[in-house]
């Protein structure tokens, strides 16, 4: 079974600063996908960034980037130039590829990030 661990229940960061959220996972698969989702207080889950395990290059999306360490099974999220709108729960998620391209997401327990003005 796949497990996803987020060891930081809560974090805070000053506006405009950089913060890194940690995630580790356990799997015997070689090919898989990793995601970071953001869930603001309104509760709509929004995709932040995704990473394919077969790609060595770390994914980036504007202010968001990941540090993917496949051997260590680590997938951290770095948020640069933090903004007040980044305040939310952040979930790390794992997906094993399925032949149809759709499969189930396994989520961690989340990290509550607060950006302080």
């Amino acid at each position: 079974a796949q497990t996803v661990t987020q060891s930081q229940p809560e974090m805070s960061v000053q506006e405009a600063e950089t913060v890194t959220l940690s995630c580790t996972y356990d799997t015997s698969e070689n090919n898989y996908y990793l995601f970071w989702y953001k869930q603001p207080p309104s509760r709509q889950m929004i995709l932040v960034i995704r990473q394919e395990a077969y790609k060595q290059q770390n994914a980036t999306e504007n202010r968001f980037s990941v540090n993917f360490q496949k051997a260590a099974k680590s997938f951290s999220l770095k948020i640069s130039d933090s903004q007040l709108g980044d305040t939310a729960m952040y979930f790390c998620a794992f997906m094993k590829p399925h032949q149809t391209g759709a499969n189930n997401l396994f989520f961690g327990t989340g990290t509550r990030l607060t950006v302080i003005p």
Partner: protein
Amino acid sequence: EAGVVQSPRYKIIEKKQPVAFWCNPISGHNTLYWYLQNLGQGPELLIRYENEEAVDDSQLPKDRFSAERLKGVDSTLKIQPAELGDSAVYLCASSLGQSGAPRETQYFGPGTRLLVL
């Protein structure tokens, strides 16, 4: 483009009563998911549909939960009878599934927050 639509947003019922949640996925998305999110936890899959077929319902408590996706578009999740422990947020998500890219990305609705008294 409209996102995943869910209704109602909030529901309060007494225990032993029935309740139903509705989800309309993003147009063209073949795969639909229902997740359960308990307070302070990450979402957990209840059931996954590919078109009108339930391909993974292993985590659905079938004694009281049921779901359907007639015509492979919108879906209904039902609980009968509801128990106190069912109080949670019920999230619906959809993905392209068999075609398109990135097929693996799931898009979430706002969720239905259920409170059972």
